């Protein structure tokens, strides 16, 4: 058999060619990540309308909540809470629309069986989706944060930059782990997947305390901190970005919340791996996951 494009090695037969070493698997996964991220990045360049609809207009939505606080003559920290929450929604929306629901779209479009048939890890594909969608999410978050801060006079007071950055990246990791887990569930559903994405927006914003300290929700807030990465990450970032504020958060310290996030990363990624494997096995054995149009 001719040398593999991937490894450059020659093999004596199909079985030997399929026996990849760790390096080959890793390279293949990296290519899968880049390959799946590519259309997302290129798509952004080809149609710039997303700049208006996905970056500028959502900023106006966030501004509406700032004006609610202004109308109520709230302390200035609360304007900052809204701005920070508005920035983090960009990542949450990316997770549920462009990752969790994505395999459902792929099934609908007839691409899912190609993913299963291709010799690559499905987690690499999902990571590629996340990476490709990250560009627009980061830009949206950046615009909300920078323009919001400048326009509404938000003053941050950060004493632990390292911990703030760590919490931010842990939140992203936990969010995308949750997205991977949800994607495996979404693909098992029919149209309810679509409606689930709707349910994961405003109701999730409410229990995560998007515009107010989540601790004010009492038991519901505590539950959210234990289960939802957006809630715990946002609360930790608020505590770190507005250190010294008179606002009583009523939640664990940022260090404890960082540990909760570490736990979430591990659990969500492990569960995602198990669920994706199960889904792939079902797809190969029963073939029903690639059936469209329920």
């Amino acid at each position: 058999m001719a040398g593999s494009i991937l490894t450059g090695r020659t093999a004596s037969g199909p079985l030997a060619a399929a026996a990849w070493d760790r390096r080959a698997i890793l390279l293949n996964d990296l290519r899968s990540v880049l390959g799946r991220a590519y259309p997302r990045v290129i798509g952004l360049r080809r149609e710039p309308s997303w700049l208006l609809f996905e970056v500028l207009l959502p900023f106006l939505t966030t501004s509406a909540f700032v004006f609610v606080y202004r109308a109520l003559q709230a302390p200035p920290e609360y304007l900052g809470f809204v701005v920070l929450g508005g920035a983090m929604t960009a990542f949450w929306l990316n997770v549920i629309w462009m990752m969790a629901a994505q395999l459902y779209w792929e099934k609908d479009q007839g691409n899912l069986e190609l993913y299963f048939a291709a010799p690559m890890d499905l987690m690499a594909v999902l990571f590629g989706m996340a990476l490709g969608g990250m560009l627009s999410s980061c830009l949206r978050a950046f615009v909300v944060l920078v323009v919001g801060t400048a326009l509404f006079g938000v003053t941050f007071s950060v004493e632990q930059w390292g911990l703030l950055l760590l919490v931010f990246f842990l939140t992203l990791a936990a969010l995308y782990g949750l997205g991977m887990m949800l994607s495996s569930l979404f693909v098992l559903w029919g149209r309810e997947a679509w409606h689930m994405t709707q349910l994961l927006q405003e109701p999730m914003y409410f229990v995560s305390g998007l515009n107010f300290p989540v601790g004010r929700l009492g038991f519901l807030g505590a539950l959210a901190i234990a289960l939802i990465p957006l809630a715990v990450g946002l609360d930790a970032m608020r505590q770190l970005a507005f250190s010294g504020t008179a606002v009583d958060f009523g939640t664990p310290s940022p260090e404890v919340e960082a540990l909760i996030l570490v736990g979430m990363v591990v659990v969500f990624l492990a569960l995602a791996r198990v669920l994706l494997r199960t889904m792939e096995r079902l797809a190969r054995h029963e073939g029903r996951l690639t059936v469209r149009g329920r």
Partner: protein
Amino acid sequence: MDATTSSLGGPAGPTTRPAFDPRRAERGPKRANWRAFATAARLGWQMEANWTDPLLFFIYSVAKPIASALILVVMVQIISGGGPAAAQGRAFVVIGSALWAFVISGVQGVAWSVLDDRERYRMLKYLYVSPTDFLVVLVGRGVARIAVGGMGAAITLAAGVLFLGVPFDAAQADWPLFAVVMVGGLVAIVALGVLMAAICLQTRQESWSYPEAVAGALFLLVGAVFPLAVLPPAIQTVGLLVPLTWWIAGVREALFPATISSVGGNGSLYTDVTGQAAPGAPAIVLALLATTVLVTLTAALIFRISEARAKDRGLIDRTTGS
């Protein structure tokens, strides 16, 4: 035509086919349009509702508007505490966010029918070549989502009245005004949906979030959850040109006259210009009608331009994905 000839006059084939009824082609466009609208609305409703059992459908339909209202209620509660000011603020945000469920679902409904049929079901090209007005079909499909939004709005308002202290007295309500502003408001919402459909005809698959983004931006301008007086005068001017501003003000005036005005008040452009504390019912109706006519005509014009462009560039049957 006898049984041995086909509808086109040739010999009949081995299977019996229904005879061609020439009256079907002769019916007036109004009746045909109405039938297309009713069929599209029924189809839209089935697509919206038949994916699960009624209870789950109900929960999904009301969860979003209720959660939106609760976010604002908690914000008001944290800042204003439990005094009369908090009660008034709570009523204001509950009414505004409940009505906003109509706007989001109305704008989404028509726009998503383009994306649904083009990207998911791949039926848009067949609908387009069918002998019915394309716009009528799209609006019919969108009506189902408005109904779902209406259900969410009604439940949120009812919850507001029952549990959150929104002041409502059916005997005090101005029902004729309510009927007039609801008709005007719904026309304006559908017009905005048509406008978004025109945009989605031109854009890629990832336009699912565009209608909500536009609705979210309008949320800032129309006095839904805070009085316009909070905004800078230039933005207030834009807000006063949006029919939804007058629709929301009209519903407040009709059903909840005890709440504060979203248009007038100290520092508002309306009060500065007219010298009145708040617009009365005639002013609201007049402004709503004028702005609705303006938006509807603009939306129809833009939709026709977009439709022609989409046809010209082969966008009707394009599917995308990233």
